[in-house]
C-alpha cells in the first residue's frame, strides 16, 4: 500500500515534469494552431491570371454595362464598366450580386416535368416532346388561340421569338408585363396620337418635379439616375418630390411635398392651372386658341383651383403657387411620373397631368426636357408560315382587349373553365409580381398546361407543368434594348461570361427546339439552326457594330418636332380618378406598397442584397409596416408590435415600425419580400408579399393596373 502510494505519487509528479520538459507538448500546441489556420472546411480560392470581360446586366431595365473580373476564367467579381453611357463605372447592389444569381440554389438545373405534384428531372428531348404534344393537342382541337404567352417586355430577339412562336401556333394572346413605360406610351398616344418611347433628359434639366417617382430608388435606369442625383450638387439641379412618405428620394430632394396619397394628379393639374392663369407657360409650344387647350385650361383653373386642390391634396394654397412659380422660373424644368421603381403601370390621368406640365413648360424634345423618341429596333424578321390551325386560331378575338396580364388573369379567374389552355411564361413571374398575387396564383393553377422558361424555381414556375430552364444572363448572348426612361437609344449585347453551369438552354434555343418539335409550319417559321444564327440574321442591320463593340448607341430620334395636337380631354372625365379599393369606414387607413432599392421586384433578390435590408423592414421572417407615431399612438401601438394588417384583398401578420416621415393615416410596406422559394432560404420565406394585400385597379382609360394602394386596417394580434 505504502509503496503503491509512493510510486503512484512519484509517477504523477514524474509525468507532470515529463510533459513540461518534452518538446512534444510544444510541437503539438504549435501543430494544433496551424491546423486551425488551415481548416479543410474553410475554402481556399485558387489564384490565377486576372482578366476582365464586359457584358450587360439585365436584372432590371437599366441595362448597365458590367465588367466581370475573372481568375483563370472563373468569374469572381462584378464591377461597373467605366465609360458606359448608362452607368459609367457605377453599379447597383443587384448587379454586383449577379454572381449569386448564377449560383443561386433555386436555379432549375435541368428540364423538369411535373406529374401529380412531383417534379421529375427529364432530358430536353422528353420535356420538349411533352410540351410539343400538349400544344399540338390544343391546336388539333382547333383551339390554337387558347395558347397564351407572357414575357416581361416585347423588345429584343428573344421576346421576338416568343411572340413569333405564339403567332405561328395560332394565337394572338401574347402579353407583356405592365410597366410605367406602357402607361407613358398609352398617355402619349391618347394626348398626341403618336406611338413613342419616352425619355427624360434629367441630366441637363435644372428642376425635376417628381410625382412619386422613386427617382433614386430604382426608377427607370437606377444607376443613371444615381449619377444624375449626384450631379445635382455640382450642376444645381433642383429636385422636388411629391409623395406622402419621406422616401429616399424625398429625403434627397430639395423640397418634399407630402401630398395625400392618390392626389398627385390633382396637384399637377393645380400647378397647370396656376401656370395658365399667370400666363407662365411656353407660348411657342402651346397654341392658346386651340379648343382642346382651352377646355383643358378651363378645367385646370376651375376644377383644380389652388383652393380646391389644397383641400384634396393637403398642400396649402401658397405651397401650390410656390411650386408653380418654381416650375415656371426654372429654365429647363421637367416633371416625371411613374411610382416607385416604375415596375407597374399607373393611372393614365396622373401621367397625363404630369405630361401636361411638361407640355406647358414647352420642354418636349428640348434639352433637359421630356423626349418622345422613335426607337427603331433594327430587326429584320423573315416572313412566317401559318397553317390552317394557326390562321383560324389567330383570327379569333384576343381574350382581353387590353394588353395586360392582369386582365388576362381576371378573365381566367372569372371563367368556370380557363379559356387559356396553355400558358408560356418567359422572364416574368406574375404569381408574385401582379397585384392580388393570391388570386393570380389561383388563376394560373386553373390553366391546364403551363410551360415556364425560367432559370429559377420562382412562384410561377412552381405552378408549371414543364420547365424548360434558361441560361441566366451571365451564361448567354442576347441583344437587349434599354427600356428605362432615359434619353438614350442603346442596343447592347450580353455575352456569356461562363459556360452554363447546368443542363439549361438559351431561351431562344428553347423556342427554336420547341418549334422544331412541333414540326410543320411552326418549325418552318424558325429557319435558323441556332439562336446565335437567328440573332445575327435578325440583327443584321446593326450586327457588325453590335458584335464588335458590344453595343450600338444611337442618337435618339425625336418623334415629335412640334406638338401638333394636345388633347387632354381624357382629363376632363372624372372616371379617370383612381381611388383606393375599400370603404373608409371599415378600413380607416391607407396601405401603400413602397419600393426599396435594396429589394428587387419580379425576380427574388440575392443573399447579399437581402443582407443589406434594414431590420426595420425585415426581421427574421417578419415584414414591417411603417406608421406615423401619431397614428400608432391612437391605435396604442409601439415599435415592434405584432399586428394583423387587413385589406379588402387579404390579411397578414406584420410588425410595426414607427417612422416620423410617413403621413399620419398612411401605412407603407416594402415590395419585394415574401418570396416562397424554398430552395433558397437566404431569400425565400422572408416576410410578406405586399402584392398579396393589394388588388389591381384597372385604369378606365388604359385598362392597365393603376392601383397605388388600398384601404386597410390594423389590429393587435
Amino acid at each position: 500500500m505504502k509503496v503503491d502510494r509512493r510510486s503512484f505519487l512519484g509517477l504523477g509528479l514524474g509525468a507532470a515534469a515529463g510533459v513540461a520538459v518534452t518538446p512534444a507538448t510544444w510541437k503539438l500546441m504549435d501543430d494544433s494552431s496551424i491546423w486551425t489556420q488551415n481548416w479543410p472546411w474553410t475554402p481556399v480560392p485558387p489564384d490565377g491570371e486576372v482578366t476582365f470581360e464586359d457584358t450587360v446586366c439585365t436584372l432590371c431595365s437599366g441595362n448597365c454595362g458590367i465588367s466581370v473580373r475573372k481568375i483563370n476564367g472563373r468569374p469572381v467579381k462584378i464591377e461597373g464598366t467605366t465609360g458606359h453611357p448608362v452607368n459609367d463605372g457605377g453599379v447597383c447592389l443587384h448587379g454586383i450580386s449577379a454572381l449569386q444569381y448564377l449560383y443561386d440554389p433555386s436555379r432549375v438545373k435541368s428540364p423538369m416535368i411535373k406529374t401529380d405534384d412531383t417534379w421529375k428531372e427529364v432530358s430536353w428531348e422528353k420535356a420538349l416532346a411533352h410540351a410539343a404534344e400538349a400544344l399540338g393537342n390544343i391546336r388539333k382541337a382547333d383551339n390554337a388561340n387558347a395558347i397564351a404567352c407572357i414575357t416581361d417586355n416585347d423588345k429584343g430577339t428573344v421576346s421576338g421569338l416568343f411572340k413569333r412562336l405564339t403567332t405561328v401556333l395560332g394565337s394572338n394572346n401574347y402579353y407583356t408585363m405592365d410597366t410605367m413605360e406602357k402607361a407613358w406610351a398609352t398617355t402619349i398616344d391618347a394626348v398626341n396620337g403618336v406611338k413613342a418611347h419616352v425619355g427624360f433628359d434629367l441630366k441637363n434639366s435644372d428642376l425635376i418635379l417628381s410625382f412619386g417617382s422613386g427617382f433614386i430608388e430604382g426608377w427607370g435606369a437606377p444607376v443613371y439616375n444615381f449619377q444624375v442625383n449626384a450631379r445635382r450638387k455640382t450642376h444645381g439641379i433642383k429636385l422636388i418630390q411629391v409623395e406622402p412618405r419621406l422616401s429616399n428620394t424625398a429625403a434627397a430632394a430639395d423640397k418634399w411635398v407630402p401630398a395625400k396619397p392618390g392626389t398627385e394628379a390633382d396637384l399637377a393639374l393645380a400647378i397647370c392651372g396656376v401656370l395658365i392663369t399667370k400666363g407662365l407657360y411656353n407660348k411657342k409650344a402651346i397654341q392658346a386658341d386651340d379648343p382642346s387647350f382651352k377646355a383643358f385650361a378651363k378645367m385646370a383653373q376651375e376644377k383644380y383651383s389652388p383652393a380646391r386642390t389644397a383641400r384634396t391634396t393637403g398642400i396649402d394654397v401658397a405651397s401650390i403657387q410656390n411650386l408653380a412659380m418654381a416650375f415656371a422660373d426654372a429654365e429647363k424644368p421637367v416633371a416625371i411620373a411613374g411610382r416607385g421603381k416604375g415596375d407597374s403601370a399607373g393611372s393614365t390621368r396622373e401621367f397625363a397631368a404630369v405630361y401636361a406640365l411638361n407640355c406647358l413648360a414647352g420642354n418636349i424634345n428640348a434639352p433637359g426636357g421630356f423626349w418622345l423618341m422613335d426607337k427603331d429596333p433594327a430587326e429584320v424578321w423573315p416572313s412566317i408560315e401559318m397553317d390552317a390551325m394557326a390562321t383560324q386560331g389567330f383570327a379569333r378575338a384576343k381574350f382581353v382587349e387590353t394588353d395586360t396580364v392582369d386582365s388576362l388573369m381576371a378573365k381566367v379567374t372569372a371563367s368556370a373553365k380557363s379559356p387559356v389552355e396553355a400558358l408560356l411564361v418567359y422572364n416574368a413571374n406574375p404569381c408574385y409580381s401582379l397585384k392580388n398575387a393570391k388570386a393570380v396564383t389561383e388563376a394560373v393553377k386553373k390553366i391546364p398546361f403551363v410551360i415556364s422558361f425560367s432559370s429559377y424555381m420562382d412562384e410561377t414556375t412552381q405552378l408549371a407543368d414543364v420547365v424548360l430552364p434558361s441560361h441566366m444572363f451571365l451564361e448567354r448572348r442576347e441583344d437587349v434594348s434599354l427600356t428605362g426612361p432615359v434619353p438614350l437609344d442603346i442596343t447592347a449585347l450580353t455575352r456569356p461570361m461562363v459556360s452554363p453551369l447546368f443542363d439549361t438552354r438559351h431561351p431562344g434555343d428553347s423556342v427554336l427546339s420547341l418549334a422544331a418539335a412541333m414540326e410543320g409550319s411552326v418549325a418552318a417559321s424558325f429557319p435558323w439552326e441556332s439562336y446565335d444564327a437567328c440573332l445575327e440574321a435578325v440583327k443584321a442591320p446593326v450586327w457588325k457594330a453590335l458584335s464588335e463593340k458590344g453595343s450600338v448607341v444611337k442618337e435618339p430620334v425625336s418623334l415629335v418636332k412640334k406638338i401638333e395636337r394636345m388633347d387632354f380631354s381624357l382629363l376632363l372625365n372624372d372616371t379617370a380618378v383612381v381611388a383606393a379599393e375599400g370603404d373608409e369606414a371599415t378600413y380607416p387607413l391607407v396601405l401603400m406598397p413602397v419600393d426599396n432599392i435594396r429589394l428587387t421586384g419580379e425576380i427574388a433578390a440575392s443573399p447579399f442584397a437581402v443582407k443589406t435590408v434594414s431590420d426595420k423592414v425585415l426581421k427574421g421572417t417578419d415584414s414591417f409596416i411603417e406608421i406615423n407615431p401619431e397614428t400608432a399612438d391612437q391605435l396604442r401601438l409601439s415599435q415592434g408590435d405584432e399586428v394583423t394588417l387587413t385589406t379588402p384583398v387579404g390579411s397578414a401578420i406584420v410588425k410595426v415600425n414607427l417612422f416620423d416621415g410617413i403621413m399620419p393615416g398612411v401605412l407603407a410596406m416594402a415590395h419585394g419580400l415574401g418570396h416562397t422559394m424554398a430552395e433558397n432560404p437566404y431569400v425565400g420565406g422572408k416576410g410578406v408579399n405586399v402584392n398579396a394585400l393589394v388588388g389591381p385597379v384597372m385604369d378606365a382609360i388604359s385598362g392597365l393596373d393603376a392601383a397605388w394602394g388600398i384601404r386597410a386596417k390594423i389590429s393587435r394580434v
Partner: protein
Amino acid sequence: MTQQNHGNAHKFGMVIDLDKCTGCGSCMVACMSENNVPFKEDESNKKDSITWMRVYKLTNGKSFPDTDVCYLPRPCMHCGGKGDHGHSPCVSVCPATATDYDYGTGIVSQIYTRCFGCRYCMGACPYHARFFNWWDPKWPEGMEEYLSPDVSPRMRGVVEKCSFCFHRYQAAKDKAYLEERDTVAEEEYQTACTQACPSGAITFGDLNNPDHAVHQLVNPDPHHCGRPRNPKAFRLLERLETNPKVYYISEREWVRKAGDNYLDGEWEKAKMKKTKGHE
C-alpha cells in the same frame, strides 16, 4: 513600433459626401463581394451580421412633415488614435498583435490566422466596425466558385473588418513595380466601395498628398491630427480623439451634429468657433 506618421508616408483615407449618398447599398455589397464576406440564412439581426461597410440611417428626430433622413456609410475608420500615433482603440488593445497599424499607409490591418478571437478590439471600437465570425462561413453548394483569391475566407472564431481593400494597394504596387514606377497613382488604388458607388459619394486617396481629391475635399489640419478644415466636413466621434481617416461631408447642420455627442449648448459654441476659425 516606430512612430512616424508624417513625412513621406501615405495616409490613405476616405471622404463620403452624405448629401450624395442615397443609401442604395452598393458599397455594402461591393465590399462583401470583393472581400469574400459570408452570409447566413437570416441576416436580420444586425448585431451579428458581418458588414464591413454598413450604411446607417439617421433621422433628424423631427415629426412629420419636418422629418429628414440621411444615410451614413460606415467602413472601418482606420483610426490614427490619440495624437495620430497609430495607437488606434483596437490596435492598442489587441493582445496578440493580430491587428496592427501600418505607418506607411495608415491602414489598420487584421491578420485572421493570428487572431484568436478574444474580441477585445470589438469592445474597444466605438464605431462597431469590427465583426466576429460566430459561425464557420458556409456558401450554398457551388457558390464557393465565385470567391476571390485576393482575400482569404475567414474561419470561425476570428475578428474581421474593412481593410480599405489593402490587397488592391498591393496589386497596384506590384503593377507599379513591374512598370518600374515608384508611386501608385491616385486612381490605381481605390477601394471596392469607392469604385462601385453609383453616386460618386465616396472619394478615396492619400490624405497626405495635396494633389489627391480627399485632401482637397477636407483640407486636413496636420497640426491637429488631420482634423478637417473644411467647415462642412466632420469625422465621427471627433471628441474621442480616435482620429479616424474617414471623413464625412454634409451641407446639413443636423447631420454634422449627429457625427458626435454634444452637451446642451455645446454644438452652438462649437459651430461658432469653427466658423470663426475659418474667417
